[in-house]
């Protein structure tokens, strides 16, 4: 104690200050490294476990699929495959020929690897992929560059979902698979296997992952696409490396972007940042469409929302204009069908719009009429005798009992402020009708547990930020087969008519025929309203101008494999700097 009280504090402070000054003027030495801000640390680089956006962002640079969407048209084009698959309707088989490609360790990518990947998924029933491979009977090696997939029956999603999955290297995974298979819990062992240095076939390869700070990806010199032209793009990569810097929070990442510490922030940003960023001449902003669905779902298994009239009244009272213009600050589109509008091919626009763009009193009037006709009564009716709108109170269900209070579950505000806020606002709209609604944000895990597994809820607001282009999810969401714990039919929608259409759509391969079926399905949902689609937000992304050019815009943003293959350092501006 005696000694430590004697320390000269002034010296300490002086040293600190001098260090600060030394550091603040340290020089910088930059090469052609793209620096990208990530909002959160990737969960894992184990491709079988990675289900979160950040992991997928990294892994998409490393593991490549056979086929991929083309930026402009979103049509499927060959990627690792050389050309489109050859279908044989007799044997229900597809034959795929591979390009001459190499793994990042220099070995050849062959059909063995493709078969091996398929076998892992099927053998372990890897949860994220298994359902897409259920109908694949077997995979056969024809020769080094050719594989054939035998299906149990024709399947619409085979091309769009099954063949767009990543291919892994047999050499890397063989041992792991062998060990895992011997274990008591093979799947667990496989999923929990820690991948330090993934071997991939993509344009970049992981050099270093410093946990909590950054990931450092270097150019893959064995990348198959270098120099070749796919879909009109002469692929690179022209970058030496990419650094993914992990920011905990968006606001600091935006500051970093403004300061120039990073070149791109790979996450949709909140409209709140826009005003400031748009004024900044160093920043370029991209607006892209998102294949996303944000909706309000109901529990059709129990009162009060087992009554379709109440659901219709709800649809009437929800003002999508308000949500899009205020909560989304106009960066989004109103949604009326389950398939997002941006998915132009599959979206049916001819669905019921439930008084879109009507003023508030008209909405209430419509909702009131719907409910009154269905036998609902009020203590104080929301529409008085003169037809004026007043605050309704004490709604009674058609059987004469007061409606019990119910909750609208939403994700918490820190997870998604839009949905939480929407819940709050919708609660108020319900209350205008005298309906005792309570909005309750819930942590995401608990919310899913309640909605998916326990089914003890009344209503919820959820969304999918990145729906696949293939509309197979319409079937999955509402097929009565999926109405069980952990099933995706969270509303408990059961309609044999819909089930029949859905089953049919599953096996229809001809797109136009399938489209007709899906339109019917969408209309059916819009009529029965297990879900009320609310909005699709726009994706806003910001990058720094000047250092790199060549961003490729496509649906779901500029952060795509095409961009990273096409980005070029802008030496011209750099010199003039």
């Amino acid at each position, binding site marked *: 104690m005696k000694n430590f009280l004697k320390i000269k504090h002034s010296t300490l402070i002086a040293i600190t200050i001098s260090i600060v000054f030394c550091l603040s003027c340290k020089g910088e030495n930059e090469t052609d490294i793209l620096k990208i801000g990530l909002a959160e640390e990737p969960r894992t680089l184990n491709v079988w476990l990675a289900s979160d956006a950040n992991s997928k962002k990294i892994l998409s640079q490393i593991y490549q699929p056979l086929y991929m969407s083309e930026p402009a048209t979103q049509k499927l084009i060959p990627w690792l495959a050389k050309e489109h698959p050859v279908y044989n309707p007799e044997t229900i088989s597809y034959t795929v020929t591979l390009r001459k490609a190499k793994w990042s360790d220099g070995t050849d990518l062959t059909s063995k690897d493709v078969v091996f990947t398929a076998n892992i998924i099927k053998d372990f029933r890897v949860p994220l992929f298994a359902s897409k491979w259920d109908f694949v009977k077997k995979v056969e090696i024809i020769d080094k560059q050719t594989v054939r997939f035998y299906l149990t029956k024709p399947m619409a999603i085979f091309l769009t979902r099954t063949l767009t999955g990543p291919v892994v290297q047999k050499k890397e995974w063989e041992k792991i698979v062998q060990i895992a298979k011997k274990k008591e819990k093979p799947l667990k062992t496989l999923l929990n296997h820690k991948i330090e240095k993934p071997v991939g076939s993509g344009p970049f390869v992981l050099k270093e992952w410093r946990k909590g700070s950054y990931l450092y990806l270097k150019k893959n010199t064995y990348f198959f696409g270098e120099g070749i032209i796919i879909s009109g793009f002469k692929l690179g990569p022209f970058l030496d490396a990419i650094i993914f810097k992990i920011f905990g929070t968006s*606001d600091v990442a935006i500051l970093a972007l403004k300061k120039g510490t990073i070149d791109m922030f790979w996450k949709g940003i909140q409209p709140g940042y826009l005003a400031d960023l748009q004024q900044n001449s160093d920043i370029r902003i991209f607006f892209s469409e998102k294949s996303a669905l944000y909706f309000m779902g109901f529990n059709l298994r129990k009162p009060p929302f087992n009554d379709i009239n109440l659901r219709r009244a709800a649809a009437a009272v929800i003002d999508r204009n308000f949500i899009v213009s205020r909560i989304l600050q106009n960066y989004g589109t109103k949604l009326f069908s389950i398939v997002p509008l941006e998915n132009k091919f599959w979206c049916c626009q001819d669905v019921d719009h439930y008084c879109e763009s009507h003023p508030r009193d008209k909405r209430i009037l419509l909702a009131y009429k719907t409910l009154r006709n269905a036998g609902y009564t009020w203590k104080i009716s929301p529409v008085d005798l003169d037809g004026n709108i007043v605050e309704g109170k004490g709604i009674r269900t058609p059987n004469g009992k007061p409606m019990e209070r119910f909750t609208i579950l939403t994700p*918490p*505000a820190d997870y998604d402020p839009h949905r939480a806020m929407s819940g*709050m606002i919708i609660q108020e709209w319900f209350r205008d009708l005298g309906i005792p609604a309570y909005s309750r944000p819930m942590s995401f895990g608990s919310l899913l547990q309640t909605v998916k597994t326990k089914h003890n809820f009344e209503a919820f607001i959820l969304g999918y930020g990145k729906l696949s282009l293939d509309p197979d999810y319409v079937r999955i969401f509402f097929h009565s087969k999926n109405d069980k714990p952990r099933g995706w039919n969270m509303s408990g929608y059961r309609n044999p008519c819909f089930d029949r259409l859905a089953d049919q759509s599953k096996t229809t391969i001809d797109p136009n025929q399938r489209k007709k079926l899906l339109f019917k399905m969408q209309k059916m949902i819009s009529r029965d309203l297990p879900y009320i689609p609310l909005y699709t937000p726009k994706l806003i992304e910001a990058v720094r101008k000047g250092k790199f050019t060549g961003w490729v815009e496509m649906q779901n943003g500029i952060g795509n494999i095409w961009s990273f293959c096409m980005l070029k350092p802008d030496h011209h501006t750099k010199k003039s700097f």
Partner: protein
Amino acid sequence: MVTNTSDSMAGALDMLPKKRQKISAFNEKWLIFKENFIGRAGLILLSLFALMALLSFIPPLIDPMYHPMTGVDPKISCSVGPSIHHWLGTDFIGRDILSQLLAGAKIAFMVGISSAFISIVLGTSIGMIAGYFGRYIDAILMRLADIIMVMPTLLVVLIFSSLFGQLNIWTIVLVIALFRWPGVSRVIRAQTLTLKQRPFIEAAKLAGASPIRIILRHIMPNVLPLSLLYMTFRVSSAIIIEAALAFLGFGDPSSVSWGMMLQWVWKTGHMFQAPYWLLPPGICISLITLSFYMVGRAMDEVLDPRLRKEDD
């Protein structure tokens, strides 16, 4: 007035009228308190915040658009700076920041005082019971206190809210209260132990008083000032914890607290663009905790200095 030495302070007091001397004793303490600059500043600040809390009922009456949670200005659909209609501007969906700020004062008082009150009641009674009865009751209660004491309250509430979904404001109050008593009870216990040694407790025992009577009539009035002192500190910490919780996104979403406002400004990306939105709630949180703390410090100096030992 000339008397002798400091000991004759008691003598000086002899001259006061005999009646109502309890009140005069209180007045004397009040005088000391009032002389204390920090205490005075704290009280003034505190009354300002109380005024804010009272005023929070007014804006929604003027116009429903001033309702802190649901009222939106029909003309404004994004965050704008101060104007005539919105003195502190609006938030990103056009709600008035000033009325949110006022409502936040109400929540802060509610959270702070009720949670501090519960934890003080708990802490004081547990401390007195442990201190007075001693032995295994003491051992059990104090080990319990030890267990709770090593758990950082904020993180505990975080875990609770992760486990049981979003907590509503009263649950948060309760959880904070349940995890903030050990500090108080330790101090009260120590105080009770010294009081227990004091002969007046033994005299009461000799008079045949039951333990409950001794605790309530003899120990409690003597530890109450100390509890009150700790209450001011607990109010501060409860407000801070609630604000931090809301800031991290685990607050009660249906209440407009200052932490919540900060969370909105943070999460919607207005952090560094809307100082009119960022600064007021932060300053308010800091100032209200400061004012409670100041009052506490001033009380501390009025009270017997030997009573104070530990705080955070």
